């Protein structure tokens, strides 16, 4: 009860209550500040990574869209835009593979009698647990042997494997709340398994499938180690470009890129939250 204040609380309890609130406020600040601070910094008209005196005075001269123009290649350097294009091409394909195979497997895993269920689940979740450097080193040799190293397809397949745990986790979570008597009812009324799946089961688990897909998408969209080892110059993605930029000489265009990516993640988070609420509402409707 340290976190709620009763009308009869003693002075000591009041002090503790407010100290606790302030402490939590500081932790929330620590969580959110680094992400938000890059947004105003990205409108800096100078090539600095800190607030200039002009910016602090809110002088319009201190702000500009210079870094965004650089991102879109106005200075003749299209590498950022190309990297963005590659990311946009690789992530959806990897997501499609993860979601397609992952959803099927999640449905299989939630059936009542699955032999070796625990072991299979542990194996399917392991790409999230195994350190990326090991995964990418293994894939480097493997793809080199079969001629996929440095190809677009190689990166897509590698990213698909990395996205699978997220699809499995979210879809099985949705399915665990799924009322199986619905599919039996559908079958009882003459629907074949495919119709049952697409007309009854799929609409109900769709929010979970889309959330899993968004997780898989962001996993691929944000991945750099596999691209470093399995990819080649033709598959430079946005994170790759950022990583190299940060390691060598850090260019202020990164601030603009970071802001764009924060906007993307806000969009994804909003979608996932809306889907989650919708899924909870749907589940509330079905008898439990």
């Amino acid at each position, binding site marked *: *009860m*340290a*976190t709620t204040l009763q009308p009869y609380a003693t002075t000591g309890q009041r002090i503790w209550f407010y100290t606790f609130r302030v402490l*939590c406020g500081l*932790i*929330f600040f620590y969580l*959110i500040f680094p*992400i938000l*601070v*890059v947004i105003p*910094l990205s409108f800096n008209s100078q090539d600095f*990574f*800190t*607030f200039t005196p002009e910016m602090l005075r809110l002088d319009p001269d201190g702000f500009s869209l210079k870094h965004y123009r650089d991102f879109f290649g106005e200075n003749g350097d299209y590498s950022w835009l190309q990297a963005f294009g590659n990311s946009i091409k690789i992530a959806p394909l990897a997501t499609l593979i993860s979601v397609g*195979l992952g959803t099927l*497997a999640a*449905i*299989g895993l939630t*059936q*009542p*009698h*699955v*032999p070796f269920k625990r072991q*299979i*689940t542990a*194996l399917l*979740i392991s*790409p999230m*647990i*195994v*350190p990326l*450097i*090991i*995964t990418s*080193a293994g*894939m*480097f*040799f*493997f*793809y080199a042997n079969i001629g996929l190293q440095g190809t677009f397809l190689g990166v897509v397949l*590698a990213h*698909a*494997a990395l996205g*699978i745990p997220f699809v499995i986790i979210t879809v099985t979570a949705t399915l665990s709340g799924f009322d199986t008597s619905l599919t039996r009812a559908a079958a009882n009324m003459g629907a074949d398994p495919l119709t049952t799946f697409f007309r009854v089961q799929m609409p109900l688990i769709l929010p979970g499938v889309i959330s899993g897909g968004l*997780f898989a998408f962001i996993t691929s969209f944000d991945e*750099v*180690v596999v691209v470093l080892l399995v990819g080649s110059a033709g598959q430079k993605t946005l994170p790759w470009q*950022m*990583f190299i930029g*940060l*390691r060598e000489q*850090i260019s202020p265009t990164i*601030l603009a890129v970071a802001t764009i*990516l924060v906007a993307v*993640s*806000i969009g*994804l*988070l909003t979608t996932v*939250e809306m889907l*989650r609420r919708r899924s909870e509402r749907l589940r509330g409707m079905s008898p439990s």
Partner: protein
Amino acid sequence: MAQDDRTAGGVMLAADGTPLKKSLDRALRAQKIRALALIAPLLIFILVSFVFPIGEMLLRSVQNTVGTDYIPDVLPNVVVELEEWDPASGEAPPEAVYRAMAIDFAIAFDNKLHTQLGRRFNYENPGMSSLFRKSGRPVTKLDPEGGNLKEAFLDIDKDWGRVDYWATIKANSGRYTINYFLAAFDAERTLDGIQLKSPDQRVYQKLLLRTLGLSLVITLCTLALGYPVAWLLADLPSRTSNLLLILVLLPFWTSLLVRTSAWKILLQEQGVINDIWIWLGFQDRLSLINNQLGVIIAMTHILLPFMVLPLYSVMKTIPPSYLRAAKSLGATNTVAFLRVYFPQTTPGIGAGGLLVFILAVGYFITPELVGGADGTFISNRIYYQFSASGNWGLAAALGTVMLLVVLVLYYIYDKLVGVDNVKLG
């Protein structure tokens, strides 16, 4: 029921006349097969594109290869002749070994393998790379049929008479080797057998301990910061807590590189935090980046959601009436927390702590970008061995050690929490 015509000799029969047990077994088998058929495509995909490549990579930690060839295939004659020779004798090998080397070396030279061979031996005995490189053309001019090849070799380079060099070659005459693992544990073969290197040369032990130590510090930091936040979220009315939860989920959804670059920008010498520090009236700028402190600050921030979310989901299930009951029975705030609330949150601490620790041990990007020299992790060393140094065997051996650590933790996680209980938002 006993008089029912669906029993025959005490055996229950199904509607179609087959024994019920058999009929149920068949239905169960059909269910199992259907479930496995749904899982199979993904299982095959993961086995082929994930498990198999990792297994193959780990094999490299014991394969004794140069390029794609096994060393005994590159030096077939030398390997046979060296069997007779004992490095403990302290004397250079006999003439026959040099004759074998002249034959094998010439073939290796034609296949452009002699420099790779030198580099390969150099991992274990520095200096052998330059010996093999320098000896390239002169050795091919030797006549393997001629006499006194030992002296001819010594004329090319007197290092060909070094016992420890020949001992290294002899130690690598098998197709499989434990030498990479010896290197990964800072041991080496000496003329007196396998020994640990001198303490100041034990880099990998230090690196492994540092990786585990920093990961532990980061896990404790996420626990210290995550516990109060999760508690607050669990206690607030759900309308407010859902809003505040977004502050936890937004970092979770934000690109790892964005968060790392944000910290790099904030913590640098001319960055925002140092500017505020100076503005507050302090004289010296703080060195917050390219050291262990920078790694701890950035990684705690990045991994904090993985601690808050499992803690929150456990704390939400603890009825607030328990604490009220404890207090009405006379417990002070501290006692009520320690004896009633805290013990119920330990599953969340276990789940969050293990997850954060497992993820931290394998981190690569953040230590690479903000770690500097003393804040790097074992992953960074593996990447270096892999990309810059080209010592794939050592990279694989270090990878195997790290993978074992992670898998043991994963096993514990599965036993304590269950892999199907991982929560994502």
